């Protein structure tokens, strides 16, 4: 695996996930939203609902499925970052949802996407 740029790989997955969401009528509000509390890969709007999306990709399932990698620590960081986002945009009275988009990377053109809605709360 040495030599592969993980950052670029991650960006590729996020890009694919964003495309997937756009196709399904989501409006992308922000990508790679960062603050002290943590980072959110994609923030989208599904109608009036604000959706916080964590993207996880894997090339092999030898170490578990990608969606399994979003553990409670990661969830907590996302939750806190989401709270900061809502405060900073004065949107605390909106309904929101946390999704996970898992990307199974099986080669350049053969990626499979699994969108888990309301993956945690």
């Amino acid at each position, binding site marked *: 695996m040495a030599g592969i740029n993980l950052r670029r790989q991650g960006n590729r997955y996020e890009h694919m996930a964003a495309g997937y969401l756009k196709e399904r009528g989501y409006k992308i509000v922000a990508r790679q939203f960062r603050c002290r509390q943590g980072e959110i890969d994609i923030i989208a709007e599904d109608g009036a*609902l604000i959706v916080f999306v964590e993207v996880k990709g894997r090339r092999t399932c030898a170490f578990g499925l990608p969606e399994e990698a979003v553990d409670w620590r990661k969830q907590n960081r996302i*939750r806190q970052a*989401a*709270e900061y986002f*809502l405060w900073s945009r004065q949107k*605390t*009275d*909106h*309904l*929101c*949802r*946390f999704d996970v988009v898992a990307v199974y990377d099986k080669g350049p053109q053969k990626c499979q996407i699994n969108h888990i809605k*309301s993956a945690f*709360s």
Partner: protein
Amino acid sequence: MFAVAKAATVLGVNGHIVDVEVDLARGLPSFEIVGLPDTALRESRQRVRAALKNQGYAFPMHRLTVNLAPGNLRKTGSAFDLAIALGILAAGGLIPENRLQDVLVLGELSLDGKIRGVGGVLPMAMAAVCEGITEALVPVDNGSEAGLVQGLSAVVVQDLAEAVGVLTGCRSAAVPKPAEFLETGYSAVNDLSEVKGQLTARRALEIAAAGRHNLLLVGPPGCGKTMLARCLPGILPPLSNQEAVEVARIYSVANGGLGQLKLTLAPPFRSPHHSSTKAGIIGGGLLPHPGEVTLAHRGVLFLDEVGEFGRSVLDVLRQPLEDGVVSLVRYGYSVKYPSECQLVMAANPCPCGFLGSSIKECTCTGREIAAYRRRLSGPLLDRIDLQVWMDALKPKDYHTKQESSDKVRKRVVAARKAGDNTCDTNLGPADLSACARQILETAAERFRLSARAVQKTIKVSRTVALLGQSCQIGAEHVAEALTYRLSL
């Protein structure tokens, strides 16, 4: 986006109504329970979430806060699940908001939304009536308990969807059959006709039954102490309906809702093993749980091989025996458990068991015997009205025919009735005949009896008199009572 449901928790053997307030607010989705919940109650979040989903209801994407009021009362157990789930649905508008106001809702949810039985439904339902609640939704397992309570129309529900259906009126309610008073349980214990010989001990047992006196049986191994003690519940009069409910209330709390509650008129009989701890005997734990002395309320607490019990374990019995109530104090609150039971103990006279017996020589040293005797403290022995020495059986006694429990019970019932009619529990020396008083005074002086011992001797004399259908306590009654106190 707000709703209140009524649930209840148990403190001691009393129910307390708890308001389950549910608020749905916008913002980050979360699910919090506040208001001093214990661990089982905090875990209720996972059960409620899964149950709602699996019964086809969407879990709200809101900031969800559940408050259990009053806030200073500790809430325990899993009986709140159903109330929380229905509160969430009501706050979401699926159930009319004020529909839950006068309904007691009890039940634990399984992950698929089925409703499981819980402990303590009987005291909770009684508390509900006191608070003016007229309806109740309870698990199928607890239907008979809730149906027992007057003034409460209880409905049993199988699962969450059925509960919602009943509340919105689109499903008919299943009314449970109230528990019936059963006189079973008598057949389970030994019958007095099986006990051979031991005429003195049989007589003492009858007196103990008639007057609710405490009893100590001492004798060599194999002489029938345990068997005789096990006969005692069989000759006690059946409980009154009110007493049976009192007992059922305790078992409703203690059983934790495992299966249907049995409402038996047979007095309870508890025989804890001698390795039992203090908390096991009088009740205890961080969240107090009734102990054996409470489970024996209105019945018999039998301590077999009493010399093997820890001394401190026996001594904690002193206060509950006297007061008829165990009061346990914990940080911030205290609970009271009823403990009006009759104490029966069986013991060997020494470690080898044969001291004073006619069949074998005792091999213990004086020091061993003294140490063995010390395990029964003086203050505890002072509370035992009837102390009986039982010798080993003679071979010729093996085939004697003896009275059955039913016959003895009839005499006991008659004596109790006669005692209730005179209705004077604080029988003083005034009711003694002059001759009886003289015997008692002489004995008290000669044997240095404590004031309590004298008082208790009078009570035993009274029971002996009642059994003999006599209207005054005579010399022979006092004499017999004294032999039971002094025989050891």
